[in-house]
């Protein structure tokens, strides 16, 4: 059978450094896959490549059977892959509602003339975009709705920014969502709550999810399957239990000096 996302022999180099090497990977519809690995393992690069922000040096990425290589990020999103960012990147000066509305851009049809002449179709679509935006925000409880709708995203707390980022990704109506450290910086209570939400993302909204996460509790709670990356290579795959007992994985997490990781992590932050 064909997978939703299928990655073959994916490699990328930055100035001679192998950020990813011969990576094979696949996600099936409805799965939640956790991607873990020490800092500098190439996780974010991996996401950047899927979302079209970095072009791989070799290999292929197929989504629903079609290759994504050479597509612009917006085209990838158009095909149905949305993402969040490790270092939360909201449109800080747009309102919360606008953040969610603007992300529906590629799902809207109305053109400039509709806007100019305020046609029926335009009004309906705007209303629909708005309604959908509010619906998505409502998914996160009362935090992002009500008076908050018209507030700039910059006033939100860190945790809420993370939530809004997820909402924004949901608004692009994807089939697959890539979550980059969704609970980073949250307190245990908040991250527990978000873990539940991630599960509901699949059960209620039908999204397939690939998630980079350092918080092993979260990974264990929601992942159907876990992939461990190290030095740009797949170290292990399988259920959380299998992986967590894999000696190579333990070695990778514990056996390396910290400085090394930090240095290796740098090139990947460059895509801004």
């Amino acid at each position, binding site marked *: 059978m064909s997978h939703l996302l299928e990655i073959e022999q994916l490699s990328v180099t930055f100035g001679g450094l192998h950020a990813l090497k011969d990576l094979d990977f696949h996600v099936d519809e409805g799965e939640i896959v956790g991607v873990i690995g020490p800092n500098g393992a190439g996780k974010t690069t991996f996401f950047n490549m899927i979302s079209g922000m970095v072009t791989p040096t070799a290999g292929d990425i197929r989504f629903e059977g079609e290759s994504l290589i050479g597509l*612009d*990020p*917006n085209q990838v999103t158009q095909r149905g892959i949305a993402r969040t*960012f490790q270092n939360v990147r909201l449109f*800080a*000066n747009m309102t919360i509602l606008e953040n969610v509305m603007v992300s529906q851009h*590629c799902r809207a049809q109305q053109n400039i003339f509709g806007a100019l002449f305020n046609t029926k179709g*335009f009004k309906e679509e705007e209303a629909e975009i708005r309604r959908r935006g509010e619906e998505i925000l409502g998914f996160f409880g009362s935090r992002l709705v009500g008076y908050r709708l018209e507030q700039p995203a910059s006033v939100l*707390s860190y945790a809420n920014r993370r939530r809004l980022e997820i909402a924004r990704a949901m608004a692009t109506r994807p089939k697959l969502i890539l979550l980059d450290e969704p609970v980073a910086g949250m307190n245990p209570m908040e991250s527990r709550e978000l873990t539940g939400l991630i599960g509901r993302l699949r059960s209620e909204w039908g999204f397939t999810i690939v998630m980079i996460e350092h918080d092993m509790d979260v990974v264990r709670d929601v992942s159907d399957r876990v992939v461990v990356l190290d030095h740009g290579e797949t170290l292990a795959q399988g259920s959380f239990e299998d992986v967590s007992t894999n000696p190579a994985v333990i070695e990778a997490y514990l056996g390396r000096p910290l400085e090394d990781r930090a240095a290796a992590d740098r090139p990947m932050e460059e895509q801004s």
Partner: protein
Amino acid sequence: MSAVTASTGMPTAVSKGAFDVDWRQIARTGGLLALGLVFIALTGMPVGLDERTVIEPWLSLGLLSLTFLPFVLGYTVGHEKVLEGVAAKAKGARDVVAGAAVGALGGLGLSVLVVLVDNFDLRDPLVNWSPQLVEMLSFDQSVGFGFVAWIAISGALGAAGGALHVLPHQVRRAVVAAILAVLLTAIFESFLTDVIDQLEFLYASRGGLTNVWAVVVFVVAMAVSLSGGGEKLGERRAAYQAASGPAKNRQTALFIAAFSLAMIIIPLVTGKITQELMANVGIFMLLALGLNIVVGLAGILDLGYVAFFAVGGYTTAVLTSPNRGPDWPSWVPTLDGPGGWLIALAVTIVMAIFAGLVIGAPVIRMRGDYLAIVTLGFGEIIRLLFLSDWLGGYFNGAQGITNIPSADFGIFEVKGTDPRSVFYLVMVLAAISIYISWRLEHSRLGRAWMAVREDESVAEAMGINTVNVKLMAFVVGAALASFAGAVFSAKVGSIFPTSFLILVSIVILVIVIVGGMGNIVGVMVGALGLVGVLGGPKQPGLLQEFSEYKLLIYGALLIWMMLNRPEGLVPNVRRSRELHQDEFLQDAWLRGEVDRDESTTEAEASANLADGLGTNGGAS
């Protein structure tokens, strides 16, 4: 740096003494003032503007150019920025002393200058190093008199500026308002008498407010201000801003209706000078509205915007003038007669859109600052092509296209000799432009522009085709500029490549920035204030006397705005947030507003802050 007494909300009369001031700051400000005054004197402003009387017979515009700075700096040197909740310095005699000291130091600069000019001849490099300068600076008296006089005058003005702090808030405002009222009534003499002939009684026969009327205006303005006239307006504005929903819509509609009515009535009662002025303002308003979409909404710094103005102007000229270049094939019609201009306008818009695509496509993927220079290059290329002998057979090169007919609508004819008709046409087009800007800003395209402006790569990742969206901004901007071009060629009746210098792009940019990027009202205010008062690149403004110093003022204004008020006079809420992001975050943090309804830890708040700062630098 002492004397920090707790602010109790009221000015504390007690202070540690009149001379307990920050002498270093005074020396610095005074030195700067002296340099500034000497610079102004050497630019020739005082002598050049001496002919123009402000208040007959003792205050000329030239004198004013030297005297306003001591006053302003005298005010600011005593002025401490008061942060909410942070202790402020006590007000009192020390403000006056500081102001006087600064003023006197500045005056000393002029005093020294007058002695130097009198004794040494440096006229060779410095053209304004002239006997007239000595004459002016010494008030036709001896040089020694001038020396003493400037220290005294400037010191007194500085003291007066400082003394403003001592006055109660309300009185201070009234005094400033009254001073401004007198100066504005005097400076806008030609405008006011053009609007209402009968106002001439205010002025002396050779120009300038008479002493008596100056006093009357001062008193009246002061009375109005004290009676709270200004406050009410302010309250109305605040109330409007606070309103929302249908109430706000109703008020907006009311405002628009009142504004449109004013726009229809004003040209009927004013004279030709004002009508011409407003027609020119309107053309620049059209241009600025277009650039506002590109720079203000989409965040693309286009320095070659004049290219679209030129394309618009030339297309209309070619399509309507019998005097276009001889090489045009005969199937390109000459559209004079009723309706011809409208057809030409339609073609012009198409051409501008085409130009927008052709210029936009190569530059749209470039970094913001590269894009700025490359568009500037494109602006020059377009002008050079219109100027060139190569295409001279089409555009007549340097000779330009002349005899462009007026815009004839059959029932209504818009011609340059009748500025009122031009004004009406411009206003109709401006209304269309405003409508387009407003509709687009609140559509999905507008949201996409904002997203691109905020963070292009995230916008891209959110499924926005940034290239198309930016290109669209370029094209819409180009189309709006072509409106202005079409009116311009019909208005002036002839069109030359010299009307499309880089300078025009810069002036339009200054309008957008001074008015407030991304804000339609701001752009209108900017056009009115800059082109209306100072004048456009080749258009005189109300202050015709300033035309020699116009560009200097434009440059200075641009720097000042960027340093102190990058969001413009009438800011776009969002844009100003963006430009002051760090401050906003700090304020929010200080006030603990980061997140009241949630258990916000300190670490979170600071992460918040750091994050905000991070995105600030990262956007490009």
